[in-house]
């Protein structure tokens, strides 16, 4: 593998998650929402963790939130990411609901630019060499 290998891990959608990825392909972020109590679920689930209803539907979410925390990965133990270490994975808590959490990938080592609690926003990244788009998060402009 060369150091600038563009190949990365792509999602393998299933029946439950397909609508999420279809929306992402159009540049929209969605999350499942319980139609009984309004609770959002991510990653997708078949049952509401709050009221236990099975009546969950996809709804748009703002993609705005706060940086809950992050780590800086140094191990070359994930296919497609071996040559990218160190890199950061960020956990973002969306404004819609406490603990509505999305992961994201930020290239590069810790440069001091991330502060827990800082505002974050979604953007859509097309993975080089594929047709795949991923929602990603960066400090809000």
């Amino acid at each position, binding site marked *: 593998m060369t150091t600038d290998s563009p190949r990365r891990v*792509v999602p393998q959608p299933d029946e439950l998650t397909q609508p999420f990825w279809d929306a992402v392909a159009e540049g929209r972020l969605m999350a499942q929402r319980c139609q009984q109590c309004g609770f959002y679920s991510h990653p997708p689930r078949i049952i509401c963790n709050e009221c236990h209803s099975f009546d969950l539907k996809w709804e748009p979410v703002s993609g705005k939130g706060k940086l*809950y925390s992050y780590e800086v*990965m*140094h*191990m070359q*133990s994930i296919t497609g990411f071996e040559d990218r270490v160190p*890199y950061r994975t960020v956990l973002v808590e969306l404004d819609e609901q406490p603990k509505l959490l999305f*992961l994201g990938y930020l290239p590069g080592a810790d440069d001091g630019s991330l502060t827990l609690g800082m505002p974050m926003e979604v953007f859509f990244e097309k993975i080089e060499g594929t047709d795949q788009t991923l929602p*990603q998060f960066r400090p809000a402009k």
Partner: protein
Amino acid sequence: MVWEGKGKTAVVGIGLSKLTRRPEAPLGALALDACRAAIEDAGLKPEDIDGICTYPDQPFAGAGRRDGEDLVNALFLMNHGGLAPDIKWYAQISTGMIASAPIEGVNALISGAAKYVLFWRAMHIPKGTYNSFRSYSAGGDGQFGAVYGHVHGYQTHAIAYRHYLNKYHQNREKMAALVTNSRRNANLNPGAFFYNQPMSVEDYLNARMIAEPMCLFDCDVPIEGCTAIVMTTADRAKDLKNKPAYIAGYGQNTAHRPEYLTYMVDSYLDAGRPHVGKIYERAGMGPKDIDVAELYDGFAPSTLYWLEAAGFCGEGEALDFVQNGNVSLEGSLPVNTFGGSLSEGRLHGMGHLAEAVRQVTDRADKRQIKDANTAIAIDGSPLLRGSGMIFTREP
């Protein structure tokens, strides 16, 4: 209310296989070594064992190809252990955490289902790179993690740990006190993987990063090996050769069981307090009654969370609590007196359980805490799940 089973059962034998960094013998052979050693230590014969239990699952994907090769099921011991021809009771547990299996053993003894229960935990390291993700596509929950280069437990622990450090205005340098204390204890434990290797504070601070803010020495050392214990009822225990370590109470973490992403977050007290609370309640004890604490450290921050969840110190205070030798063998609360998983090796909480037994029966050699009458052993992490027991010198 104090549990009616308090003091009615006891651990009467401990056995360990050789612990190696890479597989040198089939895992099933190590399990047989550990089980035979535990039975012999108890002064029993294999054919006396009429109850068996284990927690066979492995912390990597794809285990279970062949029984005795990459895990050791109950059937393996039933077929190859030379145990009682008529096993009266057996269980294979994958809920809670490792101590959930001996907890079921306790229940079986109290119910009269078996007389002598053997429990073992065998840990395998697959060939090649341990703990790696080798696929260009990710399904299930992984399609929301692996696509971002986020797969491993240590990454999720690192995210939670950074949140913890930030929330309580702590810094990772303070962890050196806990980790080097564990190594000092391991240097007194001939069975420990790092028995002959001391570690200084500088060694800790200079260690390479794994997933910041966690460094190499915040992660336990994966090993191949097996630990086993033999348990029986208190009245039978009196006739055996070892001092019994009585089981005063047990508990499993069931509250607030978090999901894939939310287990990274600060729910460790919500989940940890009721868990340890159940152990305390059954034993009729509280943190002030505990002489020795063996608190799981697959990743070092988990010990901090347990210290707080178990009420040994206040919320967010664990990194201060572990300073100044407070958790050393000479301190007010000796913690991980055998070296923990960090320095003894990854036995998934079995090392903790075995050491708690040794401490209340004066079998911890140079690590022995004088007049240790009570010891708590807890496995897992309150971020995710756990199980545990309190052992006592007297029933």
